[in-house]
């Protein structure tokens, strides 16, 4: 009996360790980014690092200002949200409330396919279709630009926005809608005046999730944004926080390499903020 008890405790211990492993991973990632990211910031100076507008890591007198990357990431994400959220939101209202069951199945399948397409494939199509298209349409020398990245990102965040919004809209109690219908509102009015406001926390969560996806995307953006460390311009070649890390990592060394880790740390802080916001909205929508 005693042996049995010891064995059960042993098994319990193993499962406890397995359970805590996710926490361990989060700590590992946080710790590594802080340890790797702090030295360069201390050497360069936090003010100079965050607000200097010039990134010239390989120049003879190197300059490590990441303001262009931060602004590009912020503008790029904002642009993607402006374009992606209306389409995603309206699609989700259609799917959750208006669509007949058969159409719903087909469109949902399409949306999940959109979510599954690898980011390099988006990047490739962007490179071959979007970039030349923008060049011809706006008569600029190179179409690889912030604008191209914004369009790619807007498409890539659609599935997250649609799926989370649908979940939120479906969780609205049927009584709310029935009450509105009984008062004489048409179904469409009910969905927009009653269901959407009732689901607003969930829809906010969908937008925040989209922000997180857009700011963290690297490969697709790298293939269409031109990758020059300029201050952001809609039709200029730009570099994001993610692509700044990815594009120089393979040949970097010394302080330049450390600075790349610092960029990753800044990106990580952005993501943690977004995660906190996401949790806030998700918790509120559950209540």
């Amino acid at each position: 009996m005693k042996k049995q008890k010891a064995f059960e405790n042993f098994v319990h211990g193993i499962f406890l360790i397995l359970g805590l492993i996710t926490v361990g991973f989060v700590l590992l990632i946080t710790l590594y980014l802080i340890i790797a990211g702090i030295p360069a910031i201390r050497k360069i100076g936090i003010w100079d690092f965050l607000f200097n507008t010039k990134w010239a890591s390989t120049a003879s007198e190197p300059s490590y200002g990441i303001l262009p990357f931060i602004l590009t990431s912020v503008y790029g994400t904002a642009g993607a949200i402006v374009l992606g959220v209306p389409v995603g939101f309206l699609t989700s209202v259609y799917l959750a409330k208006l669509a007949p069951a058969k159409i719903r199945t087909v469109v949902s399948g399409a949306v999940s396919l959109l979510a599954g397409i690898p980011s390099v494939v988006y990047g490739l199509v962007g490179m071959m279709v979007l970039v030349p298209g923008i060049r011809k349409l706006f008569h600029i020398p190179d179409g690889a630009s912030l604008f191209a990245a914004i369009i790619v990102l807007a498409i890539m965040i659609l599935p997250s926005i649609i799926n989370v919004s649908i979940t939120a809209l479906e969780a609205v109690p049927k009584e709310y809608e029935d009450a509105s219908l009984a008062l004489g509102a048409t179904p469409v009015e009910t969905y927009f005046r009653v269901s959407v406001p009732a689901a607003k926390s969930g829809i906010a969560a969908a937008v925040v999730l989209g922000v997180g996806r857009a700011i963290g995307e690297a490969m697709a953006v790298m293939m269409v944004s031109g990758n020059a460390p300029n201050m952001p311009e809609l039709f200029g070649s730009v570099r994001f926080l993610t692509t700044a890390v990815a594009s120089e990592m393979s040949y970097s060394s010394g302080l330049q390499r450390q600075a790349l880790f610092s960029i990753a740390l800044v990106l990580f802080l952005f993501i943690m903020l977004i995660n906190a916001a996401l949790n806030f909205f998700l918790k509120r929508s559950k209540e």
Partner: protein
Amino acid sequence: MKTVNSKINAKRKIKVVLLRALCGISAAFTCALVLFLLVYILAKGVPNISWELLTTKRSYLTGKIGILPDILNTVYIIVATLIFVLPLGVGAAVYLTEYAKNKRIVAVIEYAAETLSGIPSIIYGLVGMLFFCQFLNMQTSLLAGALTLVIMNLPTVMRTTQESLKTVPQSYREGAFGLGAGKWRVIRTVVLPGCIDGVITGCILSVGRILGESAALLFTAGFAHALNGFFEGLGSAGATLTVSLYVYAKEQGEFGVAFAIAAILMVLTLLVNLLAMLVGRRFKRRQNYE
């Protein structure tokens, strides 16, 4: 009075029709987008797929490009990731649903899992490079890449397993306890068999994610195109299909090969999605019977 009323009604009607149309147009736009991507990639890619491309490796002597090593690397990395992530994810889920009594610990673990699923893959790649490749001295290798992907996919497997564990009726557990079984025995014989559908769903989702992953593998698994066996392959650097697509398109301008790989990835994604849908439907039906 009547005219005012009908005016309001007309206004209302127009608004309703407009809103409905906007919703429909948005959904149609989303569908058209997917259709365009699918048709465009397949049309550009399929003509470039040849038996030779699929069954040879890249030769720098003849300049011919083959993607067999990349296909194999993708398979290796999927297998290796699943081997590690399944026990970890299932174990964590079992702990959360069967053992954990302290609400705070559960909240911390779930928060950690949510955090993990929000971290961008480029950061995984960076930490994977620092931790697995440098600190644990694995160098740039498929194994390092796979371990990085283990961390990425852990929340997925954990969540799907947890969902299906919740559907195992409490009475089953009580029945087994009542017959005198110990906790571990109950888990092994009653709980774990009940969560097999969640594990399978988690596997499918993970495979989809691994197939599409590139940023996390760039600096952990590398770019090599060497043809290796499973264990030899895990120890050496290698590009998966997505990474080699990136290299061929962005750095070497081999767009034919890039589109061929994109078409293959597209078909695989389609298959994974179909599979996930079928499996999901089947399990739902089974749950309803029970």
